[in-house]
C-alpha cells in the first residue's frame, strides 16, 4: 500500500467515524426526545385524571323513607340518591333488577344531581318484593365530560359497589 492509498483509507475511516458520531448523536437526541415526550404524555394524563377527579360525581343510595298508605296496602318506599362526589351527575338513570341475572323490571330517569345534593324522589311501590326477588338497584350517570359511572346497591346487604364505564351486570 503506497502513501496515496493509505491516505484514502485513512480519509474513509475518518469520514466513517464522523458519520458514526453524527448518527450516535442523532440517536441519543431521539432517545432524549422520546423520554421528554413520554414525560409530557404522563403529565397530560395526570392533568386529565386531576381534571376528571375534580368533576367526579358519586351517587350513593340513601336509606328509604317509608310512606304509609293505610291498610291493607303495604308501605311504599321512597328512595333518593345523594351525590357524595365533587361534580354534577348528569344523565341519571336507575334500574331495579334481579341481582344475579341483571334482568331489569323498572328503569327510570332522574334530573341531574349537583355535588352534595339529593336527587329527586322515586318510588318502589311494593318494597317487600325486593327481598323476594333478590333485587338490586343500579344507577348510571355521567360527569360534565361525558365519562360514565355506575353505582350498584344491594337491598339485602345495603352494600354499594362503584364503577366506571357502562355496567356489565345488567341485561337491557
Amino acid at each position: 500500500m503506497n502513501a496515496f492509498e493509505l491516505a484514502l483509507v485513512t480519509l474513509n475511516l475518518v469520514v466513517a467515524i464522523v458519520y458514526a458520531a453524527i448518527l450516535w448523536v442523532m440517536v441519543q437526541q431521539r432517545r432524549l426526545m422520546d423520554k421528554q415526550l413520554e414525560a409530557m404524555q404522563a403529565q397530560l394524563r395526570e392533568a386529565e385524571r386531576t381534571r376528571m377527579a375534580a368533576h367526579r360525581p358519586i351517587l350513593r343510595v340513601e336509606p328509604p323513607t317509608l310512606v304509609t298508605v293505610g291498610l291493607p296496602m303495604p308501605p311504599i318506599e321512597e328512595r333518593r340518591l345523594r351525590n357524595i362526589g365533587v361534580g354534577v351527575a348528569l344523565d341519571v338513570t336507575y334500574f331495579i333488577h334481579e341481582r344475579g341475572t341483571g334482568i331489569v323490571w323498572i328503569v327510570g330517569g332522574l334530573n341531574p344531581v349537583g355535588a352534595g345534593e339529593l336527587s329527586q324522589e322515586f318510588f318502589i311501590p311494593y318494597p317487600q318484593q325486593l327481598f323476594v326477588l333478590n333485587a338490586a338497584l343500579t344507577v348510571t350517570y355521567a360527569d360534565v365530560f361525558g365519562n360514565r359511572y355506575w353505582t350498584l346497591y344491594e337491598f339485602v346487604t345495603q352494600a354499594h359497589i362503584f364503577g366506571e364505564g357502562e355496567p356489565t351486570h345488567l341485561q337491557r
Partner: protein
Amino acid sequence: MAIASERSITIDVKPIPPEEIVTLAEQTWSPSPDLNFNYLLDWMARGFSQVTKVGWLTRYGPAYGGPAILFLLRNAEGKELAILVAPGEKVAEFIRQNLEEWKRNGVPFERWEVLTQTER
C-alpha cells in the same frame, strides 16, 4: 333502616273508573312515553302473567318523577312484581285491549294521589 324525612308524604288511594286510566295514559304527556312497557311485556312472558292491580300514580314515576301507571303482576308461585310504566299510546292500547278481561277478574283500578308536605 328507614330515615325520618322533613317532608310528610301521604298517598291517597281511591278507586278510579278503568276508562279514566286509559284516557289519562293516552292524554298525559311524558318525556319518555311507554317507558318500561317492554319490560312489562317481558315479565308477563316470563310467567308473571296475572294482572292483580292497575293504578294511576300521580307523581314519582319512572320518567323524571312524572305520573305512571302501576301494574301489579303475579306468577303461578304467588310471587308479585310491581312495574311502573310511563304514560303513552302503547300502554293505553294495552289497557284498552285487556280491560274487559280484567274487569271480569275483579282487578281493582286505583288512583294513587301523592301528597307531599314540608314539615319545616
